[in-house]
């Protein structure tokens, strides 16, 4: 016996830069089954109702970080959010908050890419090392110090959850600062002094007012709020330690 076909209303915030002055809401009636994600609902719209709808997606399994959207006002990965949880109410879908809308559900993430570059997200060796010296060794405890913070998939849900980023686009923000922390905590890395300049800067960690919503919405349980707030302490330490060690810490 086939299940009775259910239909849910999906309200999408549309924006076409060539024809629209401001975004507007458009409602689609989408037939769905209980195993369908919001992403599949949006794909149904594109395939059968309106081929002009634009959105990003790739893996469908919460790994690629492409399909983040505001779903009923909450930053969510649309691939792991299910239509059945909203039925019979209407589900509202909008591009990630706090980012400029390029078109429909597609945001402009150039600012984030620049921030990602600015934190030097790679290991800066403490000293030059030859091949003959072999590989770096790391204990499980040393791995533990940063592993959680390395799980970020750059989905930008945390930025859409951060009102301080919404109010000040210069704020380096949760994901980039978390990745910065990940490298600073790595026992193989010697780049902390360089990265602390960004942590301490005007656009650094002190923009954060500990709202904490970034960690709430993170699909990978990275806890960016923790990384950012730990670096407030690190920044204060960095500031006071320079009086004890004039040549250490920040330049």
């Amino acid at each position: 016996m086939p299940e009775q076909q259910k239909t849910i209303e999906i309200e999408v915030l549309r924006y076409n830069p060539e024809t629209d002055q401001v975004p507007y809401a458009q409602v689609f009636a989408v037939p769905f089954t209980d195993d369908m994600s919001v992403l599949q609902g949006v794909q149904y719209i594109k395939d059968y109702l309106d081929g002009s709808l634009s959105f990003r997606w790739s893996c469908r399994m919460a790994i690629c970080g492409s399909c983040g959207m505001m779903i009923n006002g909450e930053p969510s990965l649309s691939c792991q959010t299910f239509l059945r949880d909203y039925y019979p109410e209407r589900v509202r879908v909008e591009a990630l908050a706090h980012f400029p809308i390029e078109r429909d559900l597609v945001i402009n993430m150039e600012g984030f890419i620049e921030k990602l570059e600015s934190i030097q997200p790679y290991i800066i060796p403490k000293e030059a090392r030859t091949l003959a010296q072999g590989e770096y060794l790391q204990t499980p405890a040393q791995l533990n110090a940063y592993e959680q913070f390395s799980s970020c998939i750059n989905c930008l849900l945390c930025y859409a959850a951060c009102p301080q980023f919404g109010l000040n686009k210069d704020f380096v923000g949760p994901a980039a600062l978390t990745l910065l922390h990940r490298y600073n905590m790595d026992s193989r890395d010697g780049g902390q002094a360089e990265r602390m300049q960004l942590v301490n800067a005007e656009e650094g960690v002190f923009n954060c007012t500990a709202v904490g919503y970034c960690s709430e919405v993170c699909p990978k349980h990275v806890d960016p709020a923790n990384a950012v707030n730990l670096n407030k302490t690190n920044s204060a330490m960095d500031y006071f330690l320079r009086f004890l060690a004039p040549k250490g810490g920040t330049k």
Partner: protein
Amino acid sequence: MSKRRPYVRPMDGWWRKNPYFVEYMIHEGTALFVAAYAAVLLFGLLRLAQGEAAWNGWLLALKSPWSIGFHLLALAAIGYHAYTWFKIMPRTMPPLVVGGKRLPAWAITGGGLAAAGAASLLLFVLVWGLAR
């Protein structure tokens, strides 16, 4: 020519758009009650320094219905502030490792609330004993 024209959404009323932000704003707002209560206590200290008559005047003022109303309101506000403060604490402190395992968030929040409760009770009992 580029057809790009990225649309920037306004931030007006951002804190009303999500219950999480509303809670955050109430949390931040209740801090004003903490400051107001500290001001009341500081003012008492000032009156004490000004002599017995001033001090007794302050004590009498505390007994007015307005003052009792304020204190009840401040108690509720500070209680909420303490609760939400300890709720965010696991996100703001370094991980606590006990016996090789990381202490879960609820244990940190619960521990903080228990410590705050115990300190309040101790202070209450002490002051009650002194006042008798």
